[in-house]
């Protein structure tokens, strides 16, 4: 099941296209012979969506199919060493990939959801605070937007967020992006795009929904916000993986290596007997 879910996640990342933040209404006009190249660029999968979990699975599968073969064909050592080396490598990859994947899976998604909830709620709160301290824009307006009760006409005519972009996003801040800049840029871009592109029917569908539904909207519409949460969850996942390597992986490797040495008839039976005799 985990494998199927992972394959599905990887394929989703492959299928999802690069988001150029283009207006949906922009006609796709290509010039002359560049048509196929432009189609290629527009259709390119968004590989930046590949997370640590998917990266680990890709590395694990390729390593398991190649590394033990290289070790088993290493002619510069004797046959016993070759066997134990190939067994050790295969065990290492299987243990590392399996436990690593489970830990990442167990930590990554809950952490992402937690950050997502905190970030979206905090962002809405930040915008409300900003609006309450700036004349000309009432907190009531933002309440209406976040609760999705503003009519389409009001939303289009009085979009209070469209002119906040320059205030929230200082020029050249992309390199040193901090949490507020990135998220506010995202929320402003999202609302801008939302106002420009949304159809009446769609708006009515969203209008009845509450803050929880707005949060779900972010999941669908705001890729950077999701990436940000993904970034945090990856940091948490890596920390968990490092702890797991020195505890679970080490114990599992020790146990499996003992079994493998016995199966391969390499385990030092005589030496053990001598040690026991000495004791």
């Amino acid at each position, binding site marked *: 099941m985990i494998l199927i879910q992972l394959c599905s996640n990887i394929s989703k990342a492959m299928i999802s296209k690069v988001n*150029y933040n283009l207006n949906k209404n*922009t006609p796709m006009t290509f010039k002359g012979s560049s048509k196929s190249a432009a189609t290629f*660029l527009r259709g390119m999968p968004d590989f*930046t969506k*590949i997370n640590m979990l998917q990266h680990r699975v*890709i590395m694990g599968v*390729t390593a398991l199919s190649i590394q033990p073969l290289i070790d088993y064909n290493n002619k510069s050592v004797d046959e016993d060493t070759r066997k134990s080396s190939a067994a*050790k490598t295969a065990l290492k990859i299987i243990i590392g990939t399996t436990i690593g994947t489970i830990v990442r899976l167990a930590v990554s998604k809950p952490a992402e959801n937690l950050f997502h909830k905190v970030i979206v709620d905090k962002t809405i709160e930040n915008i409300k605070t900003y609006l309450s301290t700036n004349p000309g824009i009432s907190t009531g307006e933002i309440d209406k937007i976040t609760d999705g009760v503003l009519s389409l006409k009001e939303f289009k005519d009085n979009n209070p967020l469209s002119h906040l972009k320059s205030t929230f996003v200082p020029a050249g801040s992309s390199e040193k992006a901090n949490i507020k800049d990135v998220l506010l840029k995202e929320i402003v871009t999202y609302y801008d795009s939302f106002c420009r592109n949304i159809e009446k029917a769609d708006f009515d569908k969203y209008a009845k929904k509450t803050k929880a539904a707005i949060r779900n909207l972010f999941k669908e519409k705001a890729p950077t916000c999701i990436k940000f949460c993904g970034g945090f969850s990856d940091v948490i996942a890596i920390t968990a*993986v490092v702890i797991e390597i020195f505890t679970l992986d080490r114990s599992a490797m020790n146990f499996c290596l003992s079994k493998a040495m016995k199966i391969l008839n390499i385990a030092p039976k005589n030496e053990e007997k001598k040690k026991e005799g000495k004791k």
Partner: protein
Amino acid sequence: MNIPAPLTKLLVNLGSSKITKPATFVKYAGATTIACSSVGFAMAIAQNKDTPAKEKRFLIPQELLDGLVNVTLFLLLTSKAQTLGEKFLKKKYGNIAKENGIDIKVAAESFGMITSIVGSVISQSIATPLVRNAIASKIQKNRQNKADTQDRATKIDKKA
């Protein structure tokens, strides 16, 4: 719950780097886990009672070398592959993207990510085992020779 300020700063910086430089983030995160993994597994082999001393003489340096070579090649090849991928796309499609109003930086970032993954697969699964096996077998032979010489010396001493 209040998180200490330096930890928050570190978390924000690391989390932000996933957005601003996703390929670089995955690269350094991968290198960290590879390094920790090698040290952890070397410790497991050293503790293992069922692995003969002769095999340990090969397996422990092999594991540590695996980590060292793997991290070095991983960082080197993934960086090169990422840069080459980005440059290739910008050079080949830069003008066409400009003509059609497509942001080539976004496309190059995505392409750089997949070339860096290809680079990491080549470095980890092919280059690393070949290099570390060659070095580890030399270390094993040297250690074996030293052990043999010591054995002979002790046997001669006993006879004497």
